[in-house]
């Protein structure tokens, strides 16, 4: 019984309170994975209490993890640029704008040249949000 309880509490806390995420790729440089030699990958602490995307708990500028709309097994980390009903001018199309529909948001990587984000796939549903990145905790030099 003790093991079942411990495992349940562990699963609950990891899914709904706090978890760790390893960051791959360069799309969020310099904020995340700043090493241009790519010798290490950041591990970040993620606040899972914002899972599900209820807007009042998310702000523009937050770095969030979300499930890829093109692959339900893949987790993507980007920054929130716009929330429902905002207007966004996409990168590379300065004469057009996109109005974010109800229930959706717009994400971008800080490093636009290496980022596959809303500039390619458009606004995505808020329900995909899995958590908000708090801070890197690994390697130790990033935690200080």
């Amino acid at each position, binding site marked *: 019984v003790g093991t*079942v*309880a*411990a*495992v*349940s*509490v562990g*699963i*609950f*806390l990891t*899914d*709904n309170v706090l978890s760790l995420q390893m960051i791959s790729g360069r799309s969020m440089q310099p904020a995340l994975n700043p090493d241009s030699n790519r010798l290490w990958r950041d591990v970040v602490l993620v606040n899972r209490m914002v899972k*599900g*995307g*209820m807007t009042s708990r998310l702000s523009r500028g937050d770095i969030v993890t979300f*499930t*890829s*709309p*093109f*692959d*339900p097994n893949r987790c993507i980390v980007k920054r929130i640029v716009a929330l429902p009903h905002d207007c966004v001018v996409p990168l590379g199309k300065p004469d057009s704008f996109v109005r974010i*529909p*109800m*229930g*959706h948001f717009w994400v971008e990587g800080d490093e636009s040249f290496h980022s596959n984000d809303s500039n390619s796939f458009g606004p*995505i*549903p*808020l*329900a*995909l949000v899995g958590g908000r990145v708090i801070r890197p905790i690994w390697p130790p030099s990033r935690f200080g």
Partner: protein
Amino acid sequence: MLIAFPTACFIHTVFDYVGEISMAMGPSMLPTLNMAGDILLIERLPGWRDRVRVGDLVVFVSPANPARRATKRVLGQPGDTLCVDPTKDKLAYVQIPRGHVWLQGDNYTNSTDSRIHGPIPQAMLRGRVLACLWPSPRTLSSNTEIIPGHFTDN
């Protein structure tokens, strides 16, 4: 308190990784589901996403409102080409992108579904409906036969 918290976590974990029992509401799945009062058995055993077939009923989060869940039928899987409304004179086809499904309510006249939202990401699905337990017990999983369509070039 020491007993209540792990118990609550256990129940929550069962809901997330085994399944749940939930009531359906709304007219969009008539006549398959009643407007209110149908108790559904929903499965979430690991691997359930791969078991979703065309014809299955699924629970999903609404793309327009993340606080709202709905139940609809899967009519298209990723990669399928789907005819949006065969009753119209001018037929429109949609290619369902990778990672998305086409969801549609059985009550075509009163359903907000993929005909409005477009293909919906599979990540928005929250469970596969196995059966209705009450008031009239019946299975609701897929028994749809797929007959390949013939496309005419306009």
